[in-house]
C-alpha cells in the first residue's frame, strides 16, 4: 500500500446525493524535483451548475488543481499526491490552453470521431452527433472533412470545446482556453462557452478575465503558495483584493486604466513631443547608434517583401524616425510578420530600403549579401517563440553572446549584460538554463538579448502574446526606455491598448498592403510635430480607423 499514489475514500459517482459536482479535501501534491509542496492540505469544492473562476499568479498551481479535480492527476499524469477525500465527476470535459496540441488527428471529423470511438459510439450515429455538437459551439462548417490547420486559432478552441462536449460532461474544466488567442479568438471561445454552459458546472482557470469576469458566479483567488486567499462573488473579490490582482498580473477589467494612473504608467504613456527635444534631454544610454535628428532611420519606397517570388506585403512609402514606437496591427495573415521578416532580410525583398542613411541592396552575389548582413546587424529582432532564439545553456552567456558578436570587449560585455539582466528582473540566475525559466521570464530574456545591443531599430513580433499583465507592462517599460534612447521600435501586436496608449504611430496592414499609417493618440496629445500632418484632429482619426477596422476593444462583455 505504501506505493499508492493517492489514498482516498472515493465516491466517484453522483449517488452521494450531495449537490457537489467536484470536491477535494486535504490535498497535498508535490512535483518530483521541486523543493516545496505545491498544495498543502487544500480543500476545494464546487456545486452543481456553478461557474467558478480560479485566479492567481502564474505558477501557483491552478492548472494542476484542475487536473487533480478531473482525476487526470494521478490517472493520466503521474504526480505524487494524496488527499483525504475526493469526488471526481462521472463525466467531464477538459479544454487545454494550446490550440495546436489538443488534437491528435489532422481532420475535423476524424478528431471528433476519435472521441466518439473512445466512447464506443456506433459508426452510423457518429456523423449526426458531430454535426450537433459543432452547431452547439457555433462552428458551422460546410465540409466536416476539413483540415484542422485551416481553422483559425479561435475556431480550433471551439473545436476543442466541441470534442469535450461529445463526452456529455457534467463538469467542464477550462484551462486558460483564451491565453493564446487574439481578441477575435477570445470572443469566439467565450461566446461558445457561454452558449454551452447551460446546466453544466464550469471550472475555469484564466488570466484574461475581461470577457467573462461578470459571467461567473464565484471567484477563487490563490496566493503564490497555492493557498486560497479569497472565495466569493466576482464583485466582492475584485473590490477586496484589487491590490493582489494587480500584483499577480491578472488582466482584470480596468487594468490598463489603473496602470495608466500609476507612476510607471504615467511615464510610459507620457505624450510624445517632437523628436528634437526628447532625444536631447533623455539620453539614458549614451551609446545609441543612430541619432541623426530629423532624418529617418528607415525609409521605404515601393517596398515589397516576397515569398516564393510573390509579394506578401507591400508598402508604397513609409518612414521611421528614431524614437518612434510603431504598432503594426491588422487581421491574421495580413502580412505583419512578413513585413518584419523582410525588414530583417529574412525574406527576399524588392524596392528601395534605406537603413540609417545607407541603402540596403537586395542581391544574391556574395559581396552584396555580406554587406547587407552587416548593415542589417543594426536591427534587433525578437521572435514570437522565445525558446527558438536561445543559443547557450546559461542565462549569463545568452545576453553576452550578442554583445560579443558585435565585437565588444568581454569585460564591457559582461558589465552591460549584468545590468541588462538586472533591469529585466533576471539577475541572480546567471547559471540557469534558459529553458528552465518560466514563460514570462523566457520572454523577458529574449527581449533582453535583443535590447542589450541597443540597435538602431528593434523589431518585435507579438512580444506580449499570452503574457500576464505584469510581464506585458515590464516589456513595454523596457521598450520605452530604449525608445527614449533613440531606438525606433516596430511591434506587431493584437493588443489595441498598446497601440493606443504606448505606441507613437500605428500602421495597419491588410491583405499584404499598408493601408494606413497614422500617429497614435499618444503622439497627438503632444505639440504639433514637424512631420506630415493630415488634418486637424489625429486622435479621432486614428480611433476612427481602429473602430472601423473592428479592433477597438471596449472591455468587458457581460
Amino acid at each position, binding site marked *: 500500500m505504501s506505493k499508492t499514489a493517492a489514498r482516498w475514500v472515493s465516491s466517484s459517482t453522483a449517488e452521494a446525493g450531495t449537490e457537489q459536482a467536484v470536491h477535494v479535501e486535504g490535498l497535498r501534491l508535490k512535483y518530483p524535483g521541486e523543493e516545496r509542496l505545491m498544495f498543502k492540505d487544500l480543500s476545494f469544492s464546487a456545486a452543481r451548475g456553478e461557474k467558478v473562476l480560479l485566479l492567481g499568479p502564474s505558477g501557483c498551481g491552478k492548472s494542476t488543481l484542475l487536473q487533480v479535480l478531473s482525476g487526470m492527476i494521478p490517472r493520466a499524469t503521474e504526480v505524487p499526491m494524496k488527499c483525504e477525500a475526493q469526488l471526481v465527476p462521472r463525466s467531464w470535459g477538459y479544454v487545454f490552453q494550446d490550440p495546436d496540441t489538443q488534437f*491528435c488527428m489532422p481532420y475535423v471529423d*476524424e478528431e471528433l470521431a476519435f472521441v*466518439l470511438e473512445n466512447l464506443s459510439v456506433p459508426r452510423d450515429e457518429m456523423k449526426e452527433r458531430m454535426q450537433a455538437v459543432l452547431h452547439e459551439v457555433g462552428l458551422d462548417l460546410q465540409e466536416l472533412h476539413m483540415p484542422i490547420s485551416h481553422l483559425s486559432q479561435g475556431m480550433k478552441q471551439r473545436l476543442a470545446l466541441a470534442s469535450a462536449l461529445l463526452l456529455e460532461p457534467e463538469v467542464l474544466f477550462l484551462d486558460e482556453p483564451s491565453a493564446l488567442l487574439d481578441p477575435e479568438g477570445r470572443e469566439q471561445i467565450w461566446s461558445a462557452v457561454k452558449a454551452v454552459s447551460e446546466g453544466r458546472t464550469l471550472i475555469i482557470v484564466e488570466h484574461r478575465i475581461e470577457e467573462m469576469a461578470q459571467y461567473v458566479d464565484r471567484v477563487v483567488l490563490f496566493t503564490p503558495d497555492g493557498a486560497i486567499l479569497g472565495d466569493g462573488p466576482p464583485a466582492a473579490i475584485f473590490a477586496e483584493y484589487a491590490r493582489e490582482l494587480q500584483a499577480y498580473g491578472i488582466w482584470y477589467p480596468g487594468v490598463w486604466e489603473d496602470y495608466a494612473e500609476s507612476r510607471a504608467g504615467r511615464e510610459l504613456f507620457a505624450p510624445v513631443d517632437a523628436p528634437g527635444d526628447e532625444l536631447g534631454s533623455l539620453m539614458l544610454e549614451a551609446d545609441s547608434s543612430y541619432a541623426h535628428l530629423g532624418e529617418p532611420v528607415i525609409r521605404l519606397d515601393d517596398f515589397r517583401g516576397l515569398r516564393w517570388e510573390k509579394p506578401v506585403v507591400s508598402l508604397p512609402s513609409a518612414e521611421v524616425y528614431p524614437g518612434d514606437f510603431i504598432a503594426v496591427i491588422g487581421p491574421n495573415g495580413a502580412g505583419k510578420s512578413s513585413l518584419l521578416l523582410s525588414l530583417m532580410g*529574412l525574406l527576399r525583398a524588392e524596392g528601395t530600403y534605406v537603413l540609417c542613411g545607407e541603402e540596403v541592396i537586395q542581391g544574391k552575389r556574395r559581396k552584396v549579401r555580406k554587406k547587407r548582413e552587416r548593415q542589417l546587424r543594426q536591427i534587433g529582432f525578437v*521572435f514570437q517563440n522565445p525558446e*527558438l532564439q536561445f*543559443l547557450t545553456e546559461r542565462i549569463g552567456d545568452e545576453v553576452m553572446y*550578442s554583445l560579443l558578436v558585435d565585437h565588444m570587449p568581454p569585460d564591457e560585455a559582461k558589465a552591460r549584460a549584468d545590468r541588462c539582466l538586472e533591469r529585466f528582473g533576471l539577475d541572480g540566475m546567471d547559471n540557469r538554463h534558459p529553458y528552465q525559466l518560466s514563460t514570462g521570464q523566457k520572454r523577458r530574456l529574449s527581449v533582453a538579448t535583443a535590447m542589450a545591443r541597443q540597435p538602431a531599430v528593434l523589431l518585435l513580433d507579438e512580444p506580449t502574446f499570452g503574457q500576464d499583465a505584469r510581464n506585458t507592462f515590464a516589456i513595454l517599460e523596457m521598450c520605452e526606455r530604449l525608445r527614449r534612447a533613440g531606438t525606433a521600435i516596430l511591434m506587431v501586436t493584437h493588443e489595441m491598448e498598446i497601440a493606443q496608449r504606448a505606441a507613437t504611430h500605428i500602421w495597419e496592414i491588410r491583405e499584404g498592403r499598408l493601408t494606413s499609417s497614422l500617429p497614435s493618440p499618444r503622439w497627438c496629445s503632444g505639440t504639433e510635430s514637424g512631420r506630415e500632418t493630415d488634418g486637424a484632429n489625429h486622435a479621432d482619426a486614428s480611433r476612427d480607423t481602429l473602430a472601423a477596422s473592428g479592433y477597438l476593444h471596449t472591455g468587458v462583455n457581460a
Partner: protein
Amino acid sequence: MNIWNPVRITWLHRANPVVKLGLICALFFMTVLTHDLDFVIYQAFIFMICLVLLSGVKPWKMLLFFIPFLLAFISSASSMMLFGKGETIWWEWGLFRVSEESFYRGLHLGFKGIAFASEGLLLVTTTSSVDLFYSLMQKLRLAPKYAYSFMASIRLLPMVWEEYVIRRQALKVRGVRPIRGVRGMVHRAGMYVVPLLAQSIRRAHRVAAAMEAKQFDGDRAKARTYYYPSRYSRYDLLVVGLLAAAACCAYIAAGYFPWFGIGDVRFD
C-alpha cells in the same frame, strides 16, 4: 498522407490494407529467398509492370521512382561486383577484383533491389497511412495506443518543420558564425536538434494528455468503434490472384526463357 496522389483508382487501391500488407510481405519473402538470377530478373520486370499498371500514378511521376531504382541498381550491383568473392577472375586492378561469380551476383543484387522496391511501391502508392492503421487496429487488433501515436505524430511533423525554419532564421539574426571542422558540424547540428527535440517532447506529452482527457483507452482494440471501416471485399481476392499470377509468370518465364541460365548465385 499519400504524396503520390493517384489519378486512377485501381483494384489495388480498393483492397484491404492488411491484405495488401500480408501479400507484399509474402512477395518479399519470395524475393529474398530467390537465388536464381533469371527468376529475379523476371520478378523485377513483372513487378515493375504491375507497378505501372496498378499504382494509378501520373506517368511523369513514375520517373520519380525509376531514377532512384537506377541509382540503387548501380550502387548495390557495383559494390558486389568489385568486391565479391569469386574464383574465376575476369579483371583485377588494385583493390578491385571482378570475378565471374561476383559479376553475376552483383547483377542479381541489382535486380533484386528493383524487385523489392517495386513490391514496396505497390503498397506505398496505394495505401494511406491512416487507412493502414485503422485496418491494423480492426483486423489485427493492434493496440490503439500505437496506431494513434503514429497518426498523431505524423500530424505534428509539419509543426516541427516550421520550427526548423524559424530556428534557422533566429540563428541568422543572432549572428551565429559556423565553426569549422567536425566539431563545428556537431555543434551546429546540436543547435538545431536540441530545441526542436525539446519542443517535440513537450508537444508529444501535451497531446498525450489531451488524448487521455478524451477518455482514450489505448490498450483495448476491441472496446472501441471505428470511424473508418475496414472491410474485406472481392478486390482482396482479385489482388491476391493477380499478384500470385504475376509471380508464377515470372517463375515460369525464368524456366523457359532464361537469360543467363546460371542458377544459384551464392558463393557455395
